[in-house]
């Protein structure tokens, strides 16, 4: 995409936004009544036209069956990780002596895509016990409630690698 075109709206994301907003509208209205759907289509078109800008190449995701399958596997992995971490957190909170060793550690990611890094940081935050405080280049600063490793490589292996394994395929 040349620089002259880069200020124009991206048709693909415009259409995706419109469809997503329309689906949301229909879920919340709760009927397939013609009037409601037409009103929703008009409003969704207005909002998506105002909100959608150019879509730089680095934010684009190429769809393929393998990636979709990995995305599903990733969601399952994330759900299990969240559930397990919540149980560990419950054990910590209920233990009388409050066994925590908190600290902020530095980990590195191999992901190049900004969208992949965003999803990685959010996944880390969503799992109780680890909380991404700041991001600088390819380094994440993570508040970890139970620091049990001494060097950055080991922390990276324990916190990041599980998610990265899937995200590298999805956004890679």
């Amino acid at each position, binding site marked *: 995409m040349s620089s002259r075109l880069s200020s124009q709206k991206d048709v693909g994301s415009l259409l995706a936004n419109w469809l997503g907003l329309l689906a*949301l509208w229909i*879920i*919340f209205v*709760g009927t397939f009544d013609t009037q409601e759907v037409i009103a929703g289509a008009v409003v969704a078109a207005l909002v998506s036209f105002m909100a959608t800008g150019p879509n730089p190449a680095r934010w684009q995701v190429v769809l393929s069956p393998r990636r979709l399958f990995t995305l599903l596997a990733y969601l399952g992995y994330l759900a299990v990780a*969240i*559930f397990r971490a*919540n149980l560990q*957190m*419950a054990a*910590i*909170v*209920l233990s009388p002596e*409050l066994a*925590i*060793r*908190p*600290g*902020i*550690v*530095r980990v590195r990611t191999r992901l190049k895509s900004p969208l992949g890094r965003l999803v990685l*940081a*959010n*996944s880390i*935050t*969503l*799992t*109780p*016990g680890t*909380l*991404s*405080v*700041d991001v*600088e280049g390819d380094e994440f*600063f993570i*508040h970890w*409630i139970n*620091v049990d490793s001494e060097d950055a490589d080991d922390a990276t292996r324990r916190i990041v690698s599980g998610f990265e394994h899937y995200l590298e395929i999805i956004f890679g």
Partner: protein
Amino acid sequence: MLPIIGALVVLVGAAFMVLAAIGIIRMPDPYNRIQAGTKASTLGVVLALIGLGIYEIDLLPKLIVIALFVLITNPLSSHALARAAHAAGVPLADETVRDELAAARAPKVIEEETAS
């Protein structure tokens, strides 16, 4: 049968919310309170919403949308609060083992001071 399953799921979710509230009261500093408080309650809130959806099956699509919204926005607000706490200089608890972010920030401050 379905309402009973839904109500039980809501009960499990409410139990996680109570655990999160205990966590926010017991933890020593803001970072650990975010860990134990807002994030541990995410699972509770999502479970409660899904459970209410199973209990009242007509509401399920809407409640799934709300649960997805909570799942997407909650890490963002946790991260924003943690970053704000660190930028505002809120000290970490005494139990803290190390703080590599402060170590990474410190040289920069000196550079800025000498430059100005």
